């Protein structure tokens, strides 16, 4: 158990560190996808099947694809190698250690750290479905509304690009280059003799 946990944690941490420190942006995105997969494996190791598989489906299957599409459509090739370590690294490390310390102290001194682990639940998916439909129905509807708004927003953005005035066929035909092409084509088509 401990060995499996240690290996998974090492894999996730290594890929997360690689995701922020590699030079090539696409390599960073792929290591991020690997970190997501490591997180999913940690969920599965805790016995949360639904959350683990949903993590793979959503994060590796959709969010990682979104990240790589964003890189594809905005970068356009190799970016100039930038220095990996920023100039204010001392202040950065100090802030990170401070935040980590505060979070750890808060977690360890809260009531969660001293509670017994809860009893293992029965068939998880049915229980999740029940809870989503009875106790957590308001967050479910709010998430649905959010997704609908995102879809409508994406459609509107895409529609505005396509709604620009299409080039008029008449004006296209009257351009000098096209007129020359048509004349040449007519000469070619006239039967000889």
């Amino acid at each position, binding site marked *: 158990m401990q060995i499996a946990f240690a290996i998974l944690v090492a894999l996730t941490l290594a890929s997360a560190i690689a995701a922020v420190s590699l030079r*090539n942006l*696409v*390599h960073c995105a*792929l290591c991020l*996808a690997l970190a997501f*997969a490591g997180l999913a494996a940690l969920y599965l190791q805790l016995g949360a*099947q*639904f959350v683990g*598989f*949903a993590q*793979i*489906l959503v994060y*590796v*299957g*959709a969010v*990682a*694809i979104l990240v*790589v*599409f964003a890189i*594809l459509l905005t970068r356009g090739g190799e970016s100039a190698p930038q220095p990996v370590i920023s100039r204010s690294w001392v202040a950065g490390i100090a802030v990170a250690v401070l935040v980590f310390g505060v979070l750890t102290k808060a977690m360890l001194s809260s009531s969660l750290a001293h509670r017994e682990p809860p009893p293992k639940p029965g*068939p*998880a*998916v*049915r229980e999740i479905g029940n809870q989503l439909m009875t106790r957590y129905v308001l967050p479910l509807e709010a998430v649905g509304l959010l997704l609908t708004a995102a879809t409508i927003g994406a459609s509107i953005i895409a529609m505005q690009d396509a709604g620009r005035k299409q080039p008029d066929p008449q004006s296209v035909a009257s351009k000098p280059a096209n007129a020359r092409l048509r004349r040449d084509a007519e000469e070619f088509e006239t039967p000889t003799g």
Partner: protein
Amino acid sequence: MMGDFFKGLLVMIWRVMTDQPDPKAEFLSVFPGGLQPLVSAVLSVSPIILVFATLFALTTWLERKGLGRIQNRLGPNRVGPYGLFQPIADGLKMLTKEDIVPRSADKVVHFLAPIAFLVPTLLAYAVLPYGRNLVPVNFDAGILFFFAVGASTELSIFMAGWSSRNKYSLLGAMRAIAQMISYEIPLILSSVTVIMIAGSLSLVEIVEQQGGYQFGWLPGWFVFTPWGLAGFVIFLIASLAESNRSPFDIPEAESELIAGHLTEYSGFKYALFFLAEYLGMFAVSGLAATLFLGGWRAPSPFLEWVPSYVWFLSKLVSLVCLFIWIRGTVPRLRVDQLLNFAWKFMLPMSLLNLLAAAAWHFTATWNFIGAGPGRWLLCAAMIAVPYVLLGRALTGGKKWTRRTYRFAE
């Protein structure tokens, strides 16, 4: 000790062949306790790999022969009787080809892409119930696992297209990913219909629910209900698109994009992509057979003496033959036609299918005169009327006119 080993082996094979529960127990008791989970896993996995790799080889032969006969030619017939050894010749050819990697390609990602495609595809086989007691892993969330690993293969297509540093590869990869994401939604929604009616995400449970016979002869498979038939058709079309098969093979069409994201792959890496694509096709056919066609169930009470894995394999092979038939018959869709079809037609139809399935479920308690056909008519109308209306609305008002011919002078 060796006697125990072989006796356990024979008992296990006999129990698997006759559909008895828990076939591995006696064979596993020969091994020490710590080694048993490992041996159990190997015993579950090796038949799957053997059977489906052989099926892959046979399917390449069947496809070439089938396409050849549809196109009024013979297909391979030189290598062995009726060309049956052609897959062996193809395999040897792939193995002995030079492995070319472009000089400016991203070597690590280029190397990892076929592996990242093959491994999730093989993982998907772990949850299919091949027979009455023959499921490798019975997850409580089996279908979710299947779709999760299916979604992971899209990242490998991007890896293949990006790392090749080739315009065609990149364009092909983008189109392939757009196509696969678009068709994932109707695929998952049509299987959500089955999940909703069966009440469980576990594939074993879904096959259990398709037992029984209506009127004594019609199997209780989900395909014999109106929402099941529509869902089956939607699932088949979406799975054609997910496996990048004709008529949705714009990512790999030779006349369009050379070979899309596979342009810079030669030799064995190409063979791995080819293998992974066909294995994906088998897996999704297996899932279609499990969800809609009753999995390992026999179609008639008189045929239940045939072992269950034979029924599963025959359903899978007939779906593969259907895919080959469609490939030989239907022309290729353009990429914008493909995406319009997914978002404007398949997505609304699969949502309507959900509504029809809900109507079917809630009218199950009708018991007045004519309730059975009435239920059928109601649910079928809930699907067929919007189908016609949506189809008419989406043709853009173009009229069908008489076809005119223009002949050469």
